């Protein structure tokens, strides 16, 4: 019997050792190193290599994903209210969504772009455009929060936006829909020659990334669709694709597709900057909101601006040229060196590539093919570097890998095509699922791409995931582009309809990410920075409660003397100073969202009690083992009641020692 046990023991030991050896070899780059799963697998507790900031399209927000895993980390509210984070619901962030049309709770977010230093993404800010009610937002990448939104006057369909120059000198905001400038009551049929397309250049403060409209160029009323800045040799120029050079005002599907070629507008912004610095341009009355969030008061303020500097392009000769580009071009992408300007004619099979050197030669030789509204048109043949005979249909957008290759999406034929800059030969093509719009290589439209992955963002999802009724999520696909041929690695769903995205190596951003707000730096006017500072103050029918929260109680947590008809402000400060210990608060019957308050932060919600009674409030974010106990009561008396204001904790004063 003993012998038998010994044999079993020996066998067991050997078999287990063998198993353990196989497992060990899996850990290194052994047999499975070529597996697609391994390339996107980020082990539990490990971090991704890249951040991807993916626009939320009609959700109005910006989603943060990790690559290669495709895991969603955060949805940053930008242009739309977000009850989860109280964005647009609390008193502090309501001013962020103010416009000349009043409070607008939604927009259509399109093209995020990361700030750059010397042509390299620097990870300080993301800028993104609201397309519907024209606005540009700035997201601070220390807090991953929207800290500034500026409205763009004289604009409509803010689509050729929000791209930054190579040292973040400017963010641009171009108009897709021509409009009367200034707006006025006039017949729509008089569009042609009367409507304008404003290209706005927003000067960026190098210290805090703040934006201010330096000038607006009032261009002819074409549709300015997409844009990218020059870089390297072409730094100082900006390129905008146009369609509807026909200036149609109805049935554009047909009427704006008449001309064989539209234009890429090449704008020498340095020349125009010099012109306005020397007193050029015309100040025009305007009305637009500039909303800035202060990280010390944790509060946004909205200022209405009343004037904008406009520039008539014909008054700055040599600053703007039109580059003829076939078939209603959409994407406008500039190679990492700045030499090639890629225009994707969306009704074409080919991709048109212009040469910056040839463009400059043609300009210097004054070889023009007429003009449009006084803006010189260059000869297509003079500036053409080449065209990519792809065999695909419907090219839209191009990104670069920094190794001499370009990658273009084809919407109609649902594919990404890899081609070589200079020779224009097609190297590879891979299908997407389905009808791809934008694509993104981290840093792929800057001077220094990080060409490891390309992310394709699709317009149509159909059968890619488990069905969820008529409405399905959007689909994205990740490809490995380190080899000669692209390799599809991963499908993952995205929020809203992503348009553009911007990516950056994680280590550039992660090290600057804030963990808490320091209590001693909190300058919110209603902050209670200690429990002893907590108080309840009546001012007529307004009551201000300066409250604190810490694991796991509120101070005060018993409040009396509130009356029906009062307007009660809960100003709540989270006293925690440790990472990832937010608390929430909500009050029964409050006509607003919860607050979700980060350590050291103060936020405010308003409650207008309508019924007599004793009403509870509680913490909405599970904070500790005693989270369920984190609750309190407010006594509401009839209007005119003699119950005095009182507030306590543990039946004692909040400042008891």
């Amino acid at each position: 019997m003993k012998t038998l046990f010994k044999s079993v023991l020996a066998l067991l030991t050997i078999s287990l050792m063998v198993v353990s050896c196989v497992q060990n070899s899996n850990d290194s780059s052994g047999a499975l190193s070529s597996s697609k799963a391994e390339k996107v697998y980020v082990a539990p507790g490990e971090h991704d290599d890249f951040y991807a900031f993916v626009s939320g399209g009609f959700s109005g927000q910006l989603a943060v994903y990790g690559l290669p895993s495709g895991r969603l980390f955060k949805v940053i509210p930008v242009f739309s209210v977000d009850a989860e984070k109280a964005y647009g619901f609390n008193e502090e962030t309501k001013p962020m969504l103010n416009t000349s049309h009043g409070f607008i709770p939604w927009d259509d977010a399109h093209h995020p772009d990361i700030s750059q230093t010397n042509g390299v993404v620097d990870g300080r800010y993301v800028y993104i455009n609201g397309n519907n009610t024209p606005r540009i937002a700035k997201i601070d990448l220390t807090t991953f929060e929207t800290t500034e939104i500026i409205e763009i006057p004289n604009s409509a369909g803010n689509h050729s936006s929000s791209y930054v120059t190579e040292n973040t000198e400017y963010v641009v905001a171009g108009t897709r829909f021509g409009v009367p400038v200034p707006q006025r009551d006039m017949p729509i049929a008089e569009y042609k020659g009367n409507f304008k397309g404003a290209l706005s250049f927003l000067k960026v403060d190098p210290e805090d990334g703040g934006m201010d409209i330096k000038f607006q160029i009032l261009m002819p009323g074409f549709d300015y669709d997409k844009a990218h800045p020059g870089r390297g040799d072409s730094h100082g120029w900006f390129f905008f694709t146009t369609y509807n050079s026909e200036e149609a005002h109805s049935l554009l599907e047909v009427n704006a597709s008449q001309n064989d070629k539209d234009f890429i507008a090449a704008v020498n912004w340095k020349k125009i900057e010099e012109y306005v610095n020397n007193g050029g341009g015309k100040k025009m009355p305007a009305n637009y909101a500039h909303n800035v969030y202060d990280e010390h008061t944790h509060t946004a303020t909205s200022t209405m601006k009343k004037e904008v500097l406009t520039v008539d392009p014909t008054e700055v000769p040599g600053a703007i040229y039109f580059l003829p580009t076939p078939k209603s071009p959409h994407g406008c992408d500039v190679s990492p060196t700045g030499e090639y300007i890629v225009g994707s004619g969306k009704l074409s099979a080919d991709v048109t590539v212009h040469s910056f050197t040839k463009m400059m030669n043609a300009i210097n030789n004054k070889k023009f093919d007429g003009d449009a509204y006084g803006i010189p048109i260059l000869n297509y043949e003079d500036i053409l570097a080449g065209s990519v005979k792809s065999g695909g249909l419907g090219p839209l957008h191009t990104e670069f890998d920094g190794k001499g290759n370009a990658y273009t999406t084809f919407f109609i034929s649902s594919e990404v095509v890899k081609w070589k800059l200079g020779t224009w030969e097609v190297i590879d093509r891979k299908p997407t699922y389905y009808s791809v719009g934008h694509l993104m290589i981290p840093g792929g439209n800057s001077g220094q791409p990080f060409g490891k992955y390309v992310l394709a963002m699709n317009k149509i999802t159909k059968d890619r995931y488990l069905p969820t009724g008529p409405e399905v999520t959007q689909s994205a696909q990740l490809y490995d582009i380190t080899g000669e041929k692209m390799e599809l690695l991963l499908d993952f769903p995205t929020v809203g309809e992503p348009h553009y995205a911007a990516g950056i190596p994680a280590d550039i951003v992660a090290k600057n990410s804030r963990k808490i707000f320091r209590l001693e730096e909190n300058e919110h006017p209603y902050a209670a920075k200690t429990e002893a500072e907590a108080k309840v103050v009546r001012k007529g029918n307004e009551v201000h409660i300066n409250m604190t929260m810490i694991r796991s109680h509120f101070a005060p947590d018993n409040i009396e003397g509130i009356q029906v008809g009062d307007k009660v402000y809960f100003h709540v400060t989270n006293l925690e100073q440790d990472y990832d210990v937010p608390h929430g608060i909500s009050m029964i019957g409050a006509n607003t969202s919860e607050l979700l308050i980060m350590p050291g932060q103060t936020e405010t919600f308003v409650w207008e009690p309508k019924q007599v009674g004793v009403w509870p409030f509680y913490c909405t974010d599970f904070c500790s083992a005693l989270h369920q106990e984190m609750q309190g009561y407010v006594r509401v008396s009839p209007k005119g009641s003699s119950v005095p204001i009182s507030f306590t904790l543990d039946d004692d004063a909040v400042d008891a020692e």
Partner: protein
Amino acid sequence: MKIKLAILAILALVVTSCGGDKKKVEYPVKSKTEIATPAKKVDPMTDKGIGPVTSITLGELDQAMVTEGEQIFKAKCSACHKISKRFIGPGMKGITERRTPEWIMNMILNPEEMVQKNQIAMDLLKEYNAPMANQSLTEDEARKILEYFRTKN
């Protein structure tokens, strides 16, 4: 019987050593004898706790530090600790007569590890239920709070 135990032991060893993750996760395994024995009684006035502070020499009371320490205590600690009474955590009156200066500072600076590994801190967590919060104070700030506590005996 002995062999059965041996099989179990080997199994346990092999399984532990073969963990699929690259990073080895070690779980504290208590032997029977450890479980059987009641926790050792520690003399609190010799227990320095676990954390960055290993040795503090207390000199004459420094009034400037006391004033600063009081401010820091009120700003960062008073939501859970009163001086005179038990609140979320223990009352602070007489703390320097019950605990070493090092233990006090380590509890402020390294509470997560203290409530998991230091017997006195573990017992306190059992009694008070709420784990001590890390308020991200500096060693200098903790030292000033300690000086303030010296005036509250």
